[in-house]
């Protein structure tokens, strides 16, 4: 079964393989390419990890902020997207007085918001709605389940996870990711030092971010000296647990041109998943679904790796970042350890990655995908402050949710790359 799952995944990858460059030039652009743009983006985090407001308050605050940023009002909104709660987008619409003509409560864990951007762009391109608002708020530091919103939690007692994984003590997210890290080390010789370098590089960015939770530099030795959580992952290989919230506004390219902020166009999108919450069902644990979603999004955008100025990716754990870089094709499978070890992901490196400090150092309220998109927008608008990547025109935003279960890749670009 496992080998055949892998074979199916490979065939899907083959189907979405990027066409040769000469074919690309003669192809009609994909109808989704640059059909929609992110025109509003805000987030709320705190250096002490606490926001001190309720999820419901934060949702409204974020939506208002994102609409102000876009120069739009709530009356313009005809689509709400959120993960929070049962029938989350409907309940949110009731609270805000929004009657939608398209909606999405898709919940794929941390990649949910990339999926929402993809769906918003597709709906807008098809004329199903015009102004979509995507929102997230979670306050685990305030004692709330970061996935529940106002609704029931996930994973009831009859879920596969509860029956077949949790009795063996596989409760922490780090437990599943450590299984992937162990096999990656076994197959490719990846080392703890190489994984630690990822945490070090992202911390270098966080040092430049006055809103980051961690702003003190760290060394590889610091990571290796931090307590083991689930071998081979140390505490500093693991993301933060902080409060956090954010929102995005997506609208048509046509409407975007008249708005307050420079549009950040959705050039390409792709989503793929391999399993639910049981990592025993993933197949090859060293290859994430980004091997499918990444090539699809890049082909749609018509870009190659050399065109990418900044990468924002999901770093729930250092191993997540390493495998994602491989799966997106920035290096070959298995070469991620060598690839990151020269510090190229950090400030001044050739592949600026997680420029806000990432889930490891900036913020991580349970689902980090929102902050991936907000930072990508900031970089493409030139609002990165001390951490701005000069001349950033193309960004890749890659969410990863569940336990390496579902990835969604969004390629974003400025007016110059539209």
């Amino acid at each position, binding site marked *: 079964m496992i080998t*055949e799952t892998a074979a199916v995944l490979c065939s899907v990858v083959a189907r979405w393989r990027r066409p040769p460059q000469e074919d690309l030039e003669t192809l009609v652009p994909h109808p989704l390419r640059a059909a929609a743009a992110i025109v509003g983006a805000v987030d709320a985090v705190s250096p002490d990890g606490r926001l001190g407001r309720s999820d419901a308050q934060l949702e409204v605050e974020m939506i208002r902020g994102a609409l102000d940023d876009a120069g739009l009002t709530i009356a313009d909104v005809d689509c709400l997207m959120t993960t929070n709660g049962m029938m989350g987008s409907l309940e949110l619409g009731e609270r805000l007085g929004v009657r939608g003509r398209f909606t999405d409560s898709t919940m794929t864990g941390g990649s949910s918001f990339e999926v929402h951007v993809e769906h918003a762009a597709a709906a807008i391109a098809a004329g199903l709605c015009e102004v979509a608002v995507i929102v997230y708020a979670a306050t685990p530091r305030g004692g709330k389940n970061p996935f529940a919103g106002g609704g029931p939690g996930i994973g009831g007692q009859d879920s596969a996870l*509860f029956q077949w994984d949790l009795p063996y*003590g596989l409760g922490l997210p780090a*437990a599943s990711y450590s299984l992937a890290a162990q096999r990656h080390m*076994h197959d490719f010789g990846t080392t703890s030092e190489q994984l630690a370098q990822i945490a070090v590089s992202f911390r270098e960015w966080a040092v430049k971010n006055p809103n980051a939770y961690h702003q003190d530099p760290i060394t590889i030795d610091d990571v290796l000296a931090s307590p083991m959580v689930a071998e081979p992952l140390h505490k500093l290989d693991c993301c933060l647990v902080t409060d956090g919230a954010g929102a995005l506004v997506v609208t048509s390219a046509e409407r975007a041109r008249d708005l307050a902020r420079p549009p950040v166009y959705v050039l390409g999108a792709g989503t793929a998943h391999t399993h639910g919450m049981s990592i025993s069902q993933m197949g090859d644990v060293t290859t994430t679904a980004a091997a499918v979603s990444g090539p699809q999004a890049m082909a749609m955008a018509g870009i190659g790796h050399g065109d990418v100025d900044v990468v924002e990716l999901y770093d729930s754990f250092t191993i997540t970042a390493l495998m994602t870089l491989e799966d997106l094709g920035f290096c070959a499978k298995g070469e991620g350890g060598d690839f990151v070890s020269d510090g190229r992901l950090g400030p001044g490196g050739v592949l600026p990655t997680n420029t806000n400090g990432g889930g490891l150092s900036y913020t991580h309220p349970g689902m980090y995908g929102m902050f991936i998109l907000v930072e990508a927008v900031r970089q493409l608008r030139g609002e990165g402050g001390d951490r701005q990547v000069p001349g950033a025109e193309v960004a890749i935003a890659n969410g990863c949710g569940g336990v390496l279960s579902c990835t969604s890749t969004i390629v974003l670009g400025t007016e110059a790359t539209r």
Partner: protein
Amino acid sequence: MPRIEPPVTPLAEPYWDATRRRELVAQRCDACDRFVWYPREVCPGCLSAELDWAPLAGTGTIYTFNVMRKPGNPMMGDDVPYVVALVDLDEGIRMTTNVVGADGSLRCDQRVRVDWSVELSDGRRLPVFRVTDD
């Protein structure tokens, strides 16, 4: 070692009953001749609902593992460190389990055999694994 005790769903009842006899079983799809883990309504290979319960040899290979230094749930707070592993059974299915009695030399691809030492409060057993010499 206290454990989260999963409910006995009607679907998985034959599995749990077998563990009371220290027998490891899994569903097998007649239509495409494959074993299925975990128990479910249809075969994930062909969607056939013709799944029978069949015995497993109880032997396999460690695909990957970790060493939990922080407990995965509060009940296991006194049990750290313990090993969670994905074991590839010889019948071609992969299950989450523990490797017990392991020393520091554990590695991927080691051979393991089922161990029935973990009993739940109602007499069911959780199959865990132990490294073998072969």
